[in-house]
């Protein structure tokens, strides 16, 4: 793995905006094509193999949590437990997830799994693909996200309720809208009938007990870029438990288990010989070099990095009331002070590609940049 500096394309902003990528720059640059990461095919094969094995272990871990009823570790509200179990046992449709991996010294290690509401999909599937077409179209890239999304939406059609698939996200975020609309784009190309609405416009018919869109038509299948951990805390979410139509929510509720960092010590308990897992525990005292993470948090908030029991770095935020886990410290590699995290996408049940976010610190936060990659 190498980091190569290059001059950006002339008028790159126009080029990405023409793809519908409107959030390439916030207060600081987000899309950054002043560099790219270069991998050998052997390295990509390793990352792909690791991602496939981690997915297999994650499914085993979900089965373990459900069969052993370990919900208290995950701070999951009791009233939602039967529903979560139902979505697992009935194999409710799921489409994607993103492993955050550290690749250093020839090793791949799982940092965490965003299994419910991963973003940066558009950058990974589309923007960096088109960048490569301009930069060097004969080069390869670990990126079959687009074709896998279309293929998997097509496969899921027979598992959905007959009728429309709604797509919902929050109203105020262009990034969230772009991610959602991209997934809807792929669903349209697979032949599905779709409709977009914002999450706060999702209605509940109080007389007939079903979810309704803005035309008051029933919602039977709905993709949501909105986390389960928020929905189960909002009273409106309890309507899911009494929905006469039993609408399919994508991602399904069992994904709550995987997107919760309590899955990390659970995976370690079950698969201590897996070379892609880091030791992790629910209690302090097992590790002298560790990262303390809230079981529910976003974008690197409320993280403490400890080395020899001395604070290396910490981040602020409002998370942590549900509890913490302790994961072996495995610092991100440094390329002249730039620290990349590999976002490895699972589409359907298969590894589909990677997107790389880079930070100036050891914790990948909301100031991180997206850097494209290619395979030599």
């Amino acid at each position, binding site marked *: 793995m190498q980091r190569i500096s290059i001059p950006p394309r002339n008028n790159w902003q126009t080029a990405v*905006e*023409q*793809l*519908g990528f*409107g959030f390439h720059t916030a207060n600081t640059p987000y899309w950054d094509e002043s560099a790219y990461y270069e991998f050998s095919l052997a390295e*990509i094969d390793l990352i792909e193999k690791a991602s496939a094995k981690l997915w297999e272990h994650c499914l085993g871990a979900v089965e373990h949590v459900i069969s052993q009823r370990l919900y208290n570790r995950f701070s999951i509200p009791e009233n939602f437990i039967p529903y979560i179990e139902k979505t697992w046992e009935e194999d409710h449709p799921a489409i994607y997830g993103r492993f955050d991996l550290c690749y250093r010294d020839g090793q791949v290690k799982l940092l965490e799994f*965003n299994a419910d*509401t991963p*973003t940066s999909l558009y950058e990974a599937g*589309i923007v960096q*693909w*088109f960048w*490569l077409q301009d930069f060097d179209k004969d080069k*390869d*890239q*670990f*990126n*079959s*996200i*687009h074709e896998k999304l279309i293929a998997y939406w097509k496969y899921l059609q027979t598992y959905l309720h007959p009728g429309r698939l709604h797509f*919902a996200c*929050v*109203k*105020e*975020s262009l*990034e*969230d*809208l*772009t991610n959602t*609309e991209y997934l*809807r*784009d792929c669903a*349209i*190309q697979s032949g599905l009938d779709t409709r977009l609405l*914002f*999450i*706060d*416009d*999702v*209605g*509940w*018919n*109080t*007389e*007939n007990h079903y979810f309704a869109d*803005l*035309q*008051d038509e029933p919602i039977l299948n709905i993709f949501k870029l*909105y*986390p389960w951990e*928020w929905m189960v805390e*909002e*009273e*409106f*979410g309890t*309507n899911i438990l009494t929905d006469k139509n039993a609408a399919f929510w994508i991602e399904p509720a069992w994904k709550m288990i995987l997107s919760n960092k309590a899955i990390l010590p659970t995976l370690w308990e079950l698969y201590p010989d897996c070379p892609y897992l880091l030791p992790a525990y629910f209690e302090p005292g097992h590790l002298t070099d560790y990262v303390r993470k809230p079981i529910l948090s*976003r*974008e690197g908030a409320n993280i403490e990095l400890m080395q020899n029991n001395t604070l290396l770095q910490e981040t602020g935020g409002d998370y942590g009331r549900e509890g913490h886990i302790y994961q072996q410290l495995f610092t991100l590699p440094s390329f002249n002070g730039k620290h990349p995290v590999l976002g490895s996408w699972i589409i359907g049940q298969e590894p589909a*590609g990677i997107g790389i976010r880079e930070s100036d610190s050891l914790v990948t936060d909301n100031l991180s940049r997206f850097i494209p990659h290619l*395979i030599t």
Partner: protein
Amino acid sequence: MKKTKYIELALITAALASCHQPTPQWHSANNTYIRSDSTAPYTRMQNPYANAGLCYYAFRPYGLFYNGLYRRAGYYSNALSEEVNIGHNAFKSKVVRGGFGESSLSVES
């Protein structure tokens, strides 16, 4: 090859590229187009105060109490016709909205 061979976008470039289009000039000095429900047609409102630069339309939220909490069902304005207030939404008063979306402005994860 590990990359997708060919990419075509059906929706997103059209939908989001429209963000960069010049804003349609719907607002002449005398005409304002308005509606109270996303299922309703727009109606052209004459603005008798255009020369004075004044234009007020009051929209009031309405809804119902549900499980002890007030939930928004929509908006209405006395300045608009019933059709423009309700649209297709004959069962509007039975559907509560706004229950999701309170937790944050963005998911970003």
